[in-house]
């Protein structure tokens, strides 16, 4: 129950970040960035879109899907949350590698989103493995 509630809070944080980045993408602005230059560099790089879809929008969809999967508490729902979180974590890890190794720029918002996905992956795996087994039929 605690893991589920914590997951919901983290997913809402991630949703806020992804929503902001998506809005910035479509309004053509530049994200407010605490680390000089990095956000604009990342946002305007070729990696900011995947098959024409903004990565920020993919993140937004990911966090929404995770929140939806948290609405129920069955085995299937827990598996879905774990799958979405692990996929999000993996893709965030890839994007962080791209920022560091290929773009040489760090976007603090992307780091925040990646941190949310990492936390969600840990929480969802823990929740899945530690949930009470239920009773035999």
């Amino acid at each position, binding site marked *: 129950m605690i893991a589920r509630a914590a997951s919901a809070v983290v997913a809402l944080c991630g949703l806020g970040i992804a929503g902001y980045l998506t809005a910035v993408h479509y309004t053509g602005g*530049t994200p407010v960035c605490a680390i*000089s*230059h990095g956000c*604009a*560099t990342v946002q*305007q*790089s*070729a*990696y900011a*879109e*995947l*098959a024409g879809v903004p990565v920020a929008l993919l993140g937004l969809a990911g966090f929404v899907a995770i929140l939806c999967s948290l609405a129920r508490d069955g*085995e299937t729902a827990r*598996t879905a949350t*774990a*799958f979405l979180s*692990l*996929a999000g974590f*993996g*893709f965030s*890890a*890839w994007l962080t590698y*791209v920022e560091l190794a*290929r*773009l*040489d*720029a760090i976007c603090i918002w992307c780091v925040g989103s990646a941190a949310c996905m990492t936390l969600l992956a840990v929480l969802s*795996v823990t929740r*899945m*493995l530690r*949930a009470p*087994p*239920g*009773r*035999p039929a």
Partner: protein
Amino acid sequence: MSNHLTKRELREQRRAERIAVESAYAARTRRTRVLRLVAAAGVALACVAAAAVASSNGGEPATPKPAAVDAGLFRGIPERGGVLGDPQAPLTVTEYVDLQCPVCAVAARETLPALLRDYVRTGKAKLEARTLHFIGPDSVRGARVAAGAERQGRLWPFLEAFYAAQGHENSGYVTDGFLRSVASAAGVDAGAALAFADSDAAQAPLDRANADAQRLGIDATPTFSVTRKGGRTQVVDAPSLLALLARESQR
């Protein structure tokens, strides 16, 4: 010895059977969950790998091909020592750029034409550049060759040609071949510019750019400083530049 169990023994037996069934069920559930988790992780990994491959392919830089600079943009505007326009103009606009910075290329497309037309050509302002180089090694090499173009009085056309052919940051596209193409497109003697870039003297403009940026607290590109002769310096971003110049030129 009787085969009949007492009520207490029967209860104990049933309890033991129930615990055994529950334990077996719990173990089976654990195994199922681990298998589900492994499967979920595997599918997630496959999805991420596919996305990373698609992202990599999308991120591969197309071979940049410099196009000739729009001759009309700078035609008739004198450039000396990297300063574009009338040296006696009351306002000095200094643009802090990184040649690899995509936002600088946007500013060159969207802000520079109006800046040249309304302020530089009219003698209200002169324009100079400081080539910062913090994005990566490609920025350094580009800035050093830009210093070579500056010596030939072609810094601004060189910047324009570079932006027009700008590739993916730090992808290694800024080769000598690329720089030669950019220089040629800008009307720069490419051999001389690249030879200058290899000399110790090419470092001076880079150091000056760093020092000026540090003095003004500039840590992002593109950033503009506007200085009135004998007056104070104001620092603005690209979207605010023209409005500031409109105010300053009315004073």
